[in-house]
């Protein structure tokens, strides 16, 4: 950074890109930085060129970016998450490669692939991206896509607000992405603890990128939580009592409640840190009465519920797939509901276990330690319920079941290491070591990542009309399981050997064998990522053979399987009357589940609008302007946001009406198609004979 702040360009100048560093001091670290920026630039250019060449701009704008349809918004969330996942996994791989070459000596301490500050940027962006821009969009996207269909609802309670939420999340993600090219990201880890991240120790734009990405996307997540909660409470189909909801909807409700109550804490802690940095406030400074531990407390009041926000939708997915792919009814529905809600509530009472070493009394630590151990109980209940669901079932080893099995084996280990860490006296020994890193990856990867990928595999046909390749799906799942084991099991050992987390270098040669093992795991994770991409590509090429127009490829029991694949924008031709917990399954038992409704009516859908897109653009401009101190742009964009809202408020907005005749025609065509498709037995599930119409006599859920 050089020169003063320009009134027009703020702190921006030609030296902010990593290319300057790469030209001035070419070494492995700066070249990796410039390479990453180049991937971003080339990727953006390739994307724009593809859109232009294929003339996709119009369809993209009309069918996706301006659509308030929850299902499409869900798909866009997941697409965003997969792009960010790619970056996150590559960063993880670079970190493992770095530490495998980072054995220093006392005289030459800095060694390895990247420079220490570059390494710090890597673990900060990796954590930020994986939590906020991979896990969150994955689960929010999946809930958006699945929940309304399972509830028998036409759409979210607030479809346009949903669009705004997506826009805010995407704006936050874009800020993190652009930090690759313009300037640098913060080096304070994904939690960005002050006072290190205060203005004195971290001047420059790095922490600000994090702050604005978090503030903007956090607002989006809060609004999403409200939207989910109101949808579940007020927009269920008639007869869909709370205790008839599929388990995935229950965990979505838990997530919604937790988003509503936990996200504000993150907003407050980030806003306070922003005030410290921008306006010289003294919330978390060392001087003038600041108290840095307030940040840790407020952050983790969000942060701990957050980990359960991440895991609960995966638990919902596992509840659905364990039942469907075992051909059995879910075991212990009520206990799973109670367990999910217990987890949601107890998760608000354990935040202090993230800093047992703060210096509070032993009594306080014991209380939080016990609360932490208690939360293991409902989680254990769930594991037993899923195993009991599969017990003596006709289990088909599909890709989701491979993920579930990997989850059973690995998540339990991660949970047990969490119970170990919940003991304050043990935590004093291993806190801030790679033991902790191993622990939270051990719950988040088998939990969230496997769960979400299993869910994507399971519901993919509903979105796009064709199944994903089971062979490649299973290969991907196995690679993710193997990759996890090799990457993170060595970190438990390293942690117990005394290796601190986030170390750019170390001097103990005994670490090296474990480092090589972990680096090999990193290679496997990269292979898993490639295999995941290949699964989508191979399935797309083979989409005719994999097509399931009947819409029920797995012989499911919940409402979303009663509609065609891909699902029409109105989801249900008529809002279904629900009379049982597994309504679609019960209709199969009663025979002739695909009977059409007696009459069709006009369907009212929210009209497409550019509202969310405009807010997203304004929010991104606001974030970018604040990061670079471009005050004129910040003022314009902060006035633009309420302006856009007020202008929309003054207009009378008419819904879009889909005439009954159009619905009837499409629906009757679907029902004729189902009659003419040959039913597929369970044994045929993976073959071309599976056209999405299962043999209902085999249904046993």
């Amino acid at each position, binding site marked *: 950074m050089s020169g003063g702040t320009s009134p027009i360009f703020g702190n921006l100048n030609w030296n902010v890109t990593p290319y300057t560093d790469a030209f001035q001091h070419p070494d492995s670290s700066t070249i990796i930085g410039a390479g990453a920026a180049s991937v971003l630039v080339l990727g953006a250019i390739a994307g724009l060129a593809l859109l232009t060449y294929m003339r996709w701009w119009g369809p993209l704008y009309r069918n996706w970016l301006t659509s308030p349809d929850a299902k499409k918004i869900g798909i866009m969330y997941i697409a965003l998450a997969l792009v960010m996942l790619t970056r996150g996994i590559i960063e993880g791989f670079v970190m493992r490669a770095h530490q495998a070459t980072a054995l220093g000596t006392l005289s030459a301490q800095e060694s390895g692939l990247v420079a220490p500050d570059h390494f710090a940027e890597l673990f900060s962006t990796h954590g930020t991206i994986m939590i906020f821009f991979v896990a969150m969009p994955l689960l929010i996207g999946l809930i958006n896509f699945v929940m309304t269909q399972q509830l028998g609802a036409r759409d979210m309670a607030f479809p346009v607000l949903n669009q705004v939420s997506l826009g805010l999340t995407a704006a936050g993600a874009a800020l993190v992405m652009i930090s690759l090219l313009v300037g640098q990201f913060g080096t304070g880890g994904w939690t960005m603890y002050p006072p290190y991240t205060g203005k004195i120790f971290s001047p420059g734009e790095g922490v600000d990128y994090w702050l604005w990405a978090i503030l903007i996307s956090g607002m989006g997540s809060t609004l999403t939580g409200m939207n989910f909660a109101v949808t579940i409470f007020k927009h269920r189909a008639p007869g869909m009592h709370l205790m008839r909801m599929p388990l995935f909807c229950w965990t979505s409700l838990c997530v919604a409640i937790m988003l509503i109550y936990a996200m504000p804490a993150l907003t407050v802690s980030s806003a306070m840190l922003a005030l410290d940095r921008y306006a010289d406030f003294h919330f978390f400074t060392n001087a*003038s009465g600041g108290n840095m531990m307030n940040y840790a407390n407020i952050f983790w009041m969000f942060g701990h519920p957050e980990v359960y926000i991440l895991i609960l939708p995966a638990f919902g997915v596992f509840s659905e797939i364990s039942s469907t792919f075992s051909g059995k009814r879910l075991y212990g529905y009520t206990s799973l509901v109670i367990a999910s809600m217990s987890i949601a509530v107890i998760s608000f009472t354990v935040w202090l276990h993230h800093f047992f070493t703060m210096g509070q009394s032993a009594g306080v630590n014991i209380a939080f330690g016990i609360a932490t151990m208690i939360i293991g109980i409902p989680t254990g209940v769930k594991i037993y319920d899923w195993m009991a669901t599969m017990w003596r079932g006709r289990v088909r080893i599909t890709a989701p079941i491979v993920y579930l099995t990997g989850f059973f084996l690995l998540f339990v280990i991660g949970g047990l290491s969490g119970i170990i860490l919940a003991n304050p006296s043990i935590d004093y020994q291993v806190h801030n070591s790679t033991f902790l890193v191993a622990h939270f990856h051990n719950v988040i990867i088998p939990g969230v990542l496997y769960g979400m990928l299993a869910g994507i595999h399971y519901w993919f046909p509903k979105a796009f009309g064709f199944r994903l390749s089971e062979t490649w799906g299973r290969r991907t799942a196995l690679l993710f399981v193997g990759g996890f084991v090799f990457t993170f099991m060595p970190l438990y050992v390293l942690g117990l050997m005394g290796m601190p987390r986030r170390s750019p270098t170390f001097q103990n040669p005994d670490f090296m064998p474990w480092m090589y093992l972990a680096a090999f795991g990193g290679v496997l994770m990269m292979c898993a990522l490639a295999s995941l991409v290949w699964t989508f590509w191979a399935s797309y090429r083979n989409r005719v053979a994999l097509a399931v127009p009947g819409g029920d490829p797995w012989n499911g029991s919940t409402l979303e399987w009663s509609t065609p694949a891909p699902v029409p924008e109105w989801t249900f031709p008529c809002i279904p009357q629900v009379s049982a917990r597994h309504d679609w399954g019960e209709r199969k038992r009663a025979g002739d589940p695909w009977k059409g409704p007696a009459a069709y009516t006009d369907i009212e859908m929210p009209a497409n609008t550019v509202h969310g897109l405009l807010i997203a653009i304004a929010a991104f401009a606001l974030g970018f302007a604040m990061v670079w101190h471009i005050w004129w742009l910040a003022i314009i964009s902060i006035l633009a946001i309420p302006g856009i809202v007020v202008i929309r408020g003054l207009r009378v907005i008419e819904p879009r009406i889909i005439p009954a005749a159009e619905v009837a025609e499409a629906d009757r065509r679907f029902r004729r198609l189902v009659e003419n498709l040959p039913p597929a037995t369970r044994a045929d599930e993976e073959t071309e004979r599976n056209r999405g119409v299962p043999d209902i006599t085999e249904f046993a859920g």
Partner: protein
Amino acid sequence: MSENTLYPGLNLGETHGEAHEQAESIVFGFWVFLMSDLIIFGILFASYASYLDPIGMAGGPGPKDLFDIKSVALQTGFLLFGGIAYAGVSLALKYEQGRAKLIAWLLVCAVLGAGFVVFEVKDFVTQAGKGGIPQASGWLSSYWTLVGLHGFHVCCGILWILTMIVQIATRGVDDTVKVRLSMLGVFWHFLDLIWVGIFSLVFLVPLA
């Protein structure tokens, strides 16, 4: 619970037909939003309490140097009477007493809210003059943030009232406007609730 209570608070009632039905999820959703907002204030209250000691004040000016309880009482009066005035809006809406009455009551609310803001800003200016700026100490940072955020909410409320007046004048009292007025009512009373907390915890506790 009677049949026509679809969300907490004053319902529009079945005579309003569509608007009553629409309000069920929209006003309920707005309640949920305010509960989330309440968490923000709750954390700021807790932070204020944690900085309210000699370490947090760090040798800077303290509550006894800065707070003018008479002015605070005056602000309380403006804000709470503004809250009561919204009852006029709600009743005029529910019993369909016409646009003019609605707009008049909304203006009363806006004026009383503006009176609150004027005296609050005057206090902030006086306090800054005595060295009580937010950069002086952790306690002052939390004081300005908490009370300032509430003041910002009141300003947003006034802006919202003004846009509602424009909406009533231009598009009339249609279903959408009715639902929005119900939400605005919940918001406006929410500000009173927060202020009661601020008045007691921020001003009375340290002066006691």
